[in-house]
């Protein structure tokens, strides 16, 4: 079905259309001779290889017929294969040429352009003009989706929808980083940036995300779902359609990402209200990249808020999932992206576990030890070396932070001297980490005793006793963390002790207490009891059938 050859009827008749759109978009190059234009257009269309032309025609047909299943195949498999085969280092055919093949279908072309620009961003280097055009394309797309009178008749596979939102935010972040590197921009680029300040404007991006959320009434739907109310009613006309619902949902995740990039971790977690993080069937699990992204940012937000226990829990959860499903995703084109995020999460997990020692799942623990065992030792010893390692891992694994505003183009020198946002975030985090490091260092000493004199401990640690007193108070302060208890609101939680080592001071004497986890035997017993019960049932059943069969005369033998 996918190898059907289509007659290239459209291509011959629509060259004029192509020539016109080509002329219109090349304003910079000035007017070309019309004949030359037509020849160029013809050459352009002909240069598209046959498999690609077929693919585009298929895509167009499936899009028009809302054939989501086939679209998914087109998008996830064929597009990737064709890219690898023909367009590894070059852009896909110009949208103007593709226009001829699909009869200038506006919606198709907008979607195609999104793919076209996305490809340029990932394999090539986008110029400033490409960035501007891509933004305009997104504006067209979202305008069409959001500002039509009724819900539009479009259906796309979830993977594609997620990629649109994901790429939108990625390009936004890329643009912010690009424009803030003022010293690397040429004078004309700076002029262009100054004149087009509405392009990739932070407010516009936020506006798109909030509008998608509002249009789909996704929060109302989630709340109704949680409380057992009527989801369909809560959804309204637009939210009922999968396109809007999923776009709204993915926009929530997109917002979480943007908030984290801007350093607003509380708002990020608040945005996930009612998105059931503990539910293994929640909507975000339908797209692996989305699933991984959610946990990455949630874990990161918790980490920055000092809720190390919650961060560890999030990361362990998602990393177990990734390692268990690794074999199913080998051939998915998302495999690389998911893997990279997983590696970053291991680094962040190493930091979190060093700052707030706690037992983790066996597999994760082994992998962590393999990869970061050395660094973990150094981090737990404290001191400047630990801080260096934390910085290194942090800068490797943190999201790309951005400044919401353009730099002041008039004062180039000052602008180029402002610190990159991630260094600022790192500085604040390190301040916390430095204080938090008291926990692993003290803990390793305190664990060996049940009572200890303050002066003796201070000689062990080579510290002034007064200083040690302060450190002990800091330890006490820091071992209390808020831990999320599974409520729909991720910010809530109960204050619990995050370490297994506790102590109390009686003037100068430290009394140390440890809490350990008792042996768990109930699970083992239950499982084995059930197993043997099943075995017994099995044997009894077989026995019954055997007896029944013995009593019955064999039908064939009686008929001979």
């Amino acid at each position: 079905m996918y190898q059907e050859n289509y007659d290239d009827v459209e291509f011959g008749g629509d060259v004029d259309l192509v020539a016109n759109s080509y002329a219109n978009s090349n304003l910079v190059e000035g007017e070309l001779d019309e004949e030359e234009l037509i020849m160029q257009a013809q050459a352009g269309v002909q240069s598209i290889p046959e498999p690609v032309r077929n693919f585009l025609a298929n895509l167009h047909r499936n899009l028009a017929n809302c054939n989501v299943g086939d679209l998914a195949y087109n998008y996830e498999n064929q597009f990737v294969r064709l890219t690898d085969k023909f367009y590894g280092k070059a852009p896909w055919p110009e949208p103007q040429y593709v226009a001829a093949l699909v009869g200038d279908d506006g919606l198709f072309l907008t979607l195609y352009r999104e793919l076209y620009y996305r490809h340029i961003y990932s394999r090539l280097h986008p110029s400033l003009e490409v960035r501007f055009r891509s933004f305009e394309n997104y504006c067209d797309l979202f305008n069409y989706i959001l500002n039509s009178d009724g819900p539009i008749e479009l259906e796309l596979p979830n993977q594609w929808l997620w990629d649109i939102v994901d790429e939108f935010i990625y390009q936004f972040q890329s643009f912010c980083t690009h424009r803030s590197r003022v010293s690397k921009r040429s004078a004309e680029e700076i002029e262009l940036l100054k004149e087009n300040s509405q392009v990739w404007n932070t407010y516009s991006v936020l506006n798109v995300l909030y509008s998608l959320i509002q249009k789909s009434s996704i929060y109302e739907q989630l709340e109704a779902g949680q409380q057992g109310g009527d989801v369909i009613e809560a959804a309204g006309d637009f939210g009922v359609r999968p396109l809007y619902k999923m776009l709204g949902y993915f926009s929530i995740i997109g917002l979480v990402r943007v908030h984290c990039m801007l350093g607003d971790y509380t708002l990020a977690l608040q945005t996930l209200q009612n998105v059931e993080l503990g539910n293994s069937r929640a909507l975000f699990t339908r797209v692996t990249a989305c699933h991984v992204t959610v946990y990455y940012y949630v874990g990161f937000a918790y980490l920055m808020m000092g809720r190390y226990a919650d961060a560890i829990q999030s990361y362990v959860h998602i990393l177990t999932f990734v390692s268990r499903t690794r074999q199913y995703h080998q051939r998915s084109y998302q495999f690389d992206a998911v893997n990279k995020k997983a590696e970053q999460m291991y680094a962040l997990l190493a930091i979190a576990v060093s700052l707030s020692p706690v037992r983790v799942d066996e597999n994760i623990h082994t992998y962590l030890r393999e990869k970061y065992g050395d660094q973990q030792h150094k981090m737990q010893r404290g001191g400047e070396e630990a801080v260096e390692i934390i910085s290194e891992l942090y800068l490797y694994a943190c999201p790309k932070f951005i400044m919401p505003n353009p730099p002041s183009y008039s004062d180039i020198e000052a602008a180029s001297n402002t610190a990159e946002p991630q260094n600022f975030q790192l500085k604040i985090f390190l301040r916390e980490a430095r204080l938090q490091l008291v926990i692993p260092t003290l803990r390793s000493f305190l664990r060996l005793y049940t009572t200890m004199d303050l002066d003796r401990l201070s000689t062990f640690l080579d510290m002034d006793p007064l200083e040690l007193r302060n450190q002990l108070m800091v330890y006490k302060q820091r071992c209390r963390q808020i831990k999320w208890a599974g409520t729909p609101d991720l910010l809530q939680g109960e204050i619990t002790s995050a370490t297994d080592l506790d102590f109390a001071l009686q003037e100068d004497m430290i009394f140390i207490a440890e809490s350990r986890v008792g042996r768990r035997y109930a699970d083992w017993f239950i499982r084995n009891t059930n197993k043997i019960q099943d075995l017994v049932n099995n044997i009894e059943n077989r026995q019954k059938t055997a007896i029944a069969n013995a009593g019955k005369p064999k039908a064939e033998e009686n008929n001979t």
Partner: protein
Amino acid sequence: MATTSFDRPSTRPDEIHTLLTGVERYNPQKAGVLEDYLERQCANSDPLSNHDLMANLALLKMYQFNPDLVNLDAIRCILVKALISQSQSDFNLCLYLLSDDICKDASISKLLVLRDYLEGAQFDKFWKEIYGAEDDDEGSVVDDIAGFDSGLRRLIIGEITSTYQTVAVKAVETMVSLNEEAVLRLCKEYNWPVDGSGIITLPLKSENKAKNTVIKENVKFEQLTKIISAANGI
């Protein structure tokens, strides 16, 4: 009981709540509304109701998006409030939304130093830094915040009661910067017995009770349903 800083405080008016939960929080014209609310928080000395973290974070975010609206005094107030908040991470959360330039300002950088002392439990340095020399004419960095001293002392006492089972009066004096008489009055207020040699016995609570615990496993009834039904021949 644990109400975190993220819950809606009882004193937050509806108008502010709607502002925070909608897209209006990005509207730069609303900065004035949040600043007024901040002023009201500063004037309120009741520690249980005078800190609205979410509203203050929203104001800081507005400053982040609109650098021309930045009001350093408001930022100072927000940070001071976060400093004495019950939740130790509040200060950091506010910091993440600032920038290097803002942190270079004199009063803000002083607050950062103070915060280091406070979090490092170096209380004597902290008190010295806050109020400076006797003849210092400059206004203190914690001016205009009602209830600062008492809030701060409450915080420090909270830490003391979590860490110590018995503590010397002298030690408490340095930590909360009160003279002996005031400390003894405090002990009476909280009903802490003080023995002859100036040692206060603090009440035992979960934080300062050093007891070895074993976390036992919790077997839920649902896990046993299959076994029990099999045992009863179901």
